[in-house]
């Protein structure tokens, strides 16, 4: 199917089902129940899941395949966002030209940075990319404010020229990003019993693009080009003595991966037309590295899992406050309730970073292959006797 082997087609199918039914899957608890706090099925977070999924899948094309650890990938995401917002300001609120421009600009930016940085390998390469990204961030925050609107972030105003489209709506508001009239922010709500499921246009558009991005990523993994990239990671010396020029391979991977980041940035701006400089800070670059490693570098689905994992903690755990904790445990005797709440308090709300840090350590210590390995172990635990079979299968396709 689609030029994929059965296993990959199944994987793509599973991801497609997950994306399509995410509003249900991520909303397992009735909206009024105490557990509703853990629901993640609201448009903003679902959009973030798929957008950061795209970002991480793209990053993995570089890091997972070639082993080149870029510490400046957020710069491409940031540049993509700025391009998209400028497109909204100047041309039209349609997201298509904005996203296209984001990818082109991010690709060009990646070509420039990649061309220079790829002259070095290993940690020297990492530091070069880091240096470029930090420079972009710092300049965007200060000197480049006329283009980036600095600290506040580039946003739409009521005075944008917008060649194709109106400057302001009739009611005096700023027009909304749309796909040929389909508003990105509009949401349908399905109420079923106590559940409330939200279907957001923007999410489905981003989700569709994630599927395309994921599909392309599978194709690249399975292609001769992908094999060459893995060969680069494995032995550059042999590559050279096999008549292969490694530089264009790595540069192509770098640019493709930069364009993925640009796509993610453009989508972020399409969902929410604002581009902030912090998107380019080293912490943001570090985040995508963590997502990829956490999920499982070099695997197809790992980066998406890693992205979801980190974004879930950032958005769900940070919102659990003392009052919520008390409401969970109010059935317990007072002393015990307070004791439990006191313990939990350190790990949620303002302590969400602590939980995340601990989980990083636990995952990497006990699951060397990242979350994907966790999944595989679970699968083996519940799986039938097909073990032996599968082992050989995974061995022959190490890039799974």
């Amino acid at each position, binding site marked *: 199917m689609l*030029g*994929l*082997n059965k296993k990959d087609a199944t994987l793509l199918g599973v991801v497609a089902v997950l994306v399509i039914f995410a509003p249900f899957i991520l909303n397992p608890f009735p909206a009024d129940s105490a557990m509703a706090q853990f629901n993640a099925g609201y448009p903003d977070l679902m959009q973030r899941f798929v957008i950061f999924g795209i970002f991480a899948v793209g990053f993995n094309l570089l890091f997972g395949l070639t082993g080149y650890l870029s510490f400046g990938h957020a710069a491409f995401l940031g540049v993509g966002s700025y391009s998209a917002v400028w497109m909204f300001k100047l041309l039209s609120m349609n997201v298509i030209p904005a996203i296209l421009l984001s990818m082109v600009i991010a690709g060009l930016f990646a070509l420039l940075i990649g061309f220079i940085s790829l002259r070095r390998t290993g940690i020297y390469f990492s530091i070069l990319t880091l240096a470029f990204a930090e420079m972009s961030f710092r300049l965007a925050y200060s000197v480049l404010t006329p283009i980036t609107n600095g600290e506040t972030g580039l946003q739409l105003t009521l005075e944008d020229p917008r060649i194709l489209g109106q400057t302001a709506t009739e009611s005096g508001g700023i027009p909304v990003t749309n796909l040929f009239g389909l508003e990105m922010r509009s949401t349908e709500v399905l109420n079923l019993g106590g559940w409330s499921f939200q279907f957001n246009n923007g999410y489905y558009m981003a989700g569709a693009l994630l599927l395309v991005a994921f599909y392309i990523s599978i*194709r*690249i993994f*399975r*292609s*001769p*080009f*992908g*094999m*060459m990239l*893995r*060969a680069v*990671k*494995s*032995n550059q*010396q*042999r*590559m*050279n*003595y*096999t*008549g*292969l*020029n*490694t530089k*264009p*391979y790595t540069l*192509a991977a770098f640019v*493709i991966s930069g364009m993925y980041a640009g796509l993610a940035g453009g989508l972020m701006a399409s969902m929410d037309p604002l581009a902030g400089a912090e998107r380019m800070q080293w912490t943001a670059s570090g985040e995508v590295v963590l997502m990829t490693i956490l999920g499982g570098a070099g695997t197809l689905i790992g980066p998406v899992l890693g992205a979801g994992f980190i974004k879930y903690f950032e958005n769900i755990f940070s919102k659990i406050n003392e009052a919520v904790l008390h409401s969970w445990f109010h059935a317990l005797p007072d002393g015990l309730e307070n004791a439990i709440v006191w313990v939990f308090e350190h790990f949620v709300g303002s302590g969400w970073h602590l939980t995340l840090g601990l989980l990083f350590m636990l995952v990497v210590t006990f699951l060397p292959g990242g979350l994907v390995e966790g999944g595989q172990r679970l699968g083996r635990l519940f799986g039938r006797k097909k073990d032996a079979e599968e082992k*050989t299968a995974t*061995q*022959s396709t*190490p890039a799974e």
Partner: protein
Amino acid sequence: MGILEVKNVGKRFGGLQALGDVNLSVAENSVHAIIGPNGAGKSTLLNCLVGKLIPDTGSVMFDGQSVLGRTPYEINQMGISRVFQTPEIFADLTVMENMMIPCFAKRDGAFKLNGIKSVESEAEIRDRAEAMMEDMNLAEKRHMHAASMSRGDKRRLEIAMCLAQEPRLLLLDEPTAGMARADTNNTIDLLKEIKQKRDITIVIIEHDMHVVFSLAERITVLAQGTPLVEDVPSKIKGHPKVREAYLGETAAA
């Protein structure tokens, strides 16, 4: 005019004259060995041939074209393949993949952005890789990770990868270094077989005189960066200059 012509090549590293004034001519379809004691400049010379080092003086012509100033992959694309002292293979990849990469390199050149078609659908490449593996007795191991193979198999794989490119000149850098006698003999047989089946020129750098005298048609003896003698094996054996250079080392051979 040989296929490989080395003229007046010299190379200095700081104060050390690694290569003095090397002249070498390798005839097409011959097996030419370069021997010499440690530090004689054998590896330096080899590195000058494949583009890893650029000589300070002289010229290196392959099939009438200069290789100087070209990068290793360009030189490889001209038809020179190199086998390393310790096998350089793609350890993280399977044997099959290891074999396919040189086939791609042969067909598509130094770079091709071939990102959509799947490797599996490249029937032509697969067939060639399969054929080569059959030929080299590697077919059984096609799904193994290269890293998990024995040293002998790694060597075999590396040679197979080089041959898959159908090079006109194969450079072997001490292919039996550190091998047990049985493995060494296997390698000698392998190389003999290769030579029998193909029109190929082989230049071999070797320490082990048993290997050299089993394979070589001509031998160049290098000492202190300059060629001492060049001749057929039978003449080399008793040559006084060689004995002197090796200080009796050759007596065993």
